[in-house]
């Protein structure tokens, strides 16, 4: 450390230059992490918040956008309810609608039709009840956009009116669209197409004859294993575990894959830049290192010293970059899908540092191959 610190100070211009590059990479790493988290939230927070083990779609449904395409009937639901290891299975309706608020503000919603009081029901102050079939519980992100409790939302084309009864505790979105929970019967009323303009009344809902749902939401008993293949066979369904079902959210897979690719590139660049710098730096120091070798410095001594330099640079400049990135993140407009979460940012930071150190270590290993005989020879 004695030599490492003094060299860092002596060649501070050079180290600062490389440090700035590392810092900029860190800023990008943080921003990308925020973007990735934001996109994931926008895409599937609605699904994430459901206490579901898996979804059973109608067999043969195309995986892309499966939630909108699939339809299941009562027979399939009861088939799943009888499966070993299944604690609960409920039908769930999913569809996307467009509407306007009373202040003529356009709003898109993904309707989650669920059984009031069932395990899919949102835990909101305003519970869904069959008694007020036109009441919906909307994602709290809508509240941030100016929607208030008691607002009326009029759906396009059908002119059906829904009333905002409350908001979810956390963000619940699906495919970048706010989720609105409503009773399954109301969902069926809307999906059936035989609607009447205006408020949703229990009579109108009861009159509706549509009996289908989009998927069977399955909740496994604690620690139980379900024979999915057999259950699918019996119910003619196709099961996707909760995590896998994220890919059925429109655009999710493409977005996350693109971002992941960019992140991987960034990490690779970081390792290579740091590696290149330390390779050149070690070459520049080779005469000095040869002299130290001749003086009897052990390989361990030289390696520790060289690695100490890379550790200090990586930790300091990555730290600075992360701070700047967090600052910039706070300035992001609300409209952007951006969310800085401690876990992802922390692991991205650690990964950046580790990869930079690996890049440095590979070049620093050259130190072990410097022969002390190089100390001889004339002036440079």
């Amino acid at each position, binding site marked *: 450390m*004695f*030599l490492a610190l*003094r*060299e860092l*100070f*002596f*060649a501070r211009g050079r180290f600062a230059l490389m440090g700035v590059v590392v810092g900029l990479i860190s800023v990008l790493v943080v921003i990308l992490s925020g973007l990735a988290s934001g996109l994931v939230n926008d895409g599937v927070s609605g699904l994430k918040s459901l206490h579901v083990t898996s979804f059973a779609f109608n067999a043969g449904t195309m995986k892309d956008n499966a939630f909108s395409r699939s339809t299941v009937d009562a027979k399939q639901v009861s088939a799943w309810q009888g499966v070993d290891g299944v604690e609960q299975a409920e039908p769930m309706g999913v569809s996307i609608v467009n509407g306007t608020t009373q202040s003529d503000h356009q709003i898109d919603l993904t309707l989650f039709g669920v059984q009031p009081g069932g395990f899919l029901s949102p835990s909101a102050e305003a519970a869904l009840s069959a008694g007020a079939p036109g009441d919906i519980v909307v994602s709290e992100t809508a509240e941030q956009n100016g929607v208030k409790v008691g607002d009326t939302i009029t759906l396009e084309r059908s002119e059906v009116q829904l009333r905002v009864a409350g908001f979810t505790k956390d963000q619940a979105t699906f495919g970048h669209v706010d989720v609105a929970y409503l009773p399954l019967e109301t969902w069926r009323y809307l999906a059936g197409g035989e609607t009447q303009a205006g408020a949703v009344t229990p009579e109108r809902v009861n009159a509706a004859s549509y009996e289908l749902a989009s998927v069977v939401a399955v909740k496994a008993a604690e620690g139980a294993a379900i024979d999915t293949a057999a259950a699918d066979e019996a119910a003619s369904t196709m099961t996707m575990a909760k995590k896998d079902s994220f890919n059925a959210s429109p655009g999710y897979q493409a977005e996350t894959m693109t971002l992941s690719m960019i992140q991987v590139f960034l990490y690779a660049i970081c390792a290579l830049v740091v590696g290149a710098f330390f390779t050149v730096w070690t070459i520049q120091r080779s*005469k*000095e290192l040869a*002299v*130290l*070798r*001749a*003086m*009897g*410095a*052990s*390989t361990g*001594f030289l390696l520790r010293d060289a690695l100490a330099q890379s550790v200090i640079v990586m930790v300091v400049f990555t730290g600075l970059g992360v701070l700047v990135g967090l600052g910039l993140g706070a300035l992001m407009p609300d409209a952007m899908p951006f969310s800085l979460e401690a876990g992802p940012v922390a692991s991205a930071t650690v990964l950046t540092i580790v990869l930079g150190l690996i890049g440095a270590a590979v070049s620093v290993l050259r130190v072990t191959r410097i022969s*002390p*005989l190089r*100390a*001889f*020879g*004339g*002036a*440079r």
Partner: protein
Amino acid sequence: MNNAPALLLENVQLALGDGDARVTALDHVNLCVNAGEFVAIVGPSGSGKSSLLAIAGALSAPDAGRVEIAGQDVTRLSASKAARFRRENLGFVFQADNLTPSLTSAEQLQLAGRIAGRKDVPVDALLAAVDMSHRAGHRPGQLSGGERQRVGIARALALVPRLLLVDEPTAALDRARSHEVVELLAERAKVGGTAVVMVTHDRDVLGHCDRVLEMVDGRLSELEASAL
């Protein structure tokens, strides 16, 4: 152990290069240097002087023969054992520009100590002995050639070596400085009891040495005082 010569080379052979380009660097070299002796080795370029220092300094192993330093056989030490031996027994002064660029004169000496895990190097005394106390806080870039050499000597003596190996110390110096530096080496040998082996092509300074040997085509021979 105390009576053993500081350096003993017995029938040392060393060849460099491959195939057609194979050259005999050291040819049946015998050399005995006692504690406190100041020995100079002169000879034309390419005569093998640097190879001799490398062998004597446990930096490379000979093809044949024995190398003994302060009574210990160092002929075939492993790299890490040789490194340990060097830091505990040897001091090196190289031609030029061999100080660490980022350290002040005082720190150069401290580093020498830390290589051996010691923080008790008498930096002030060492710098005073080479008349560099006033430049203790300067880095090599701010020192003249002669000053750098003197710091290099102080560094080489930091851990009180039994044997000091010096490679062309006056190559980049003018007459006056050359004499100063070599006088310094002579004084250290006498006062400190360190054996000093100096390779040089500068015939001017040989008067300060106890013995002078000549190296020609890999062979070492003692020179008469009158031949100087």
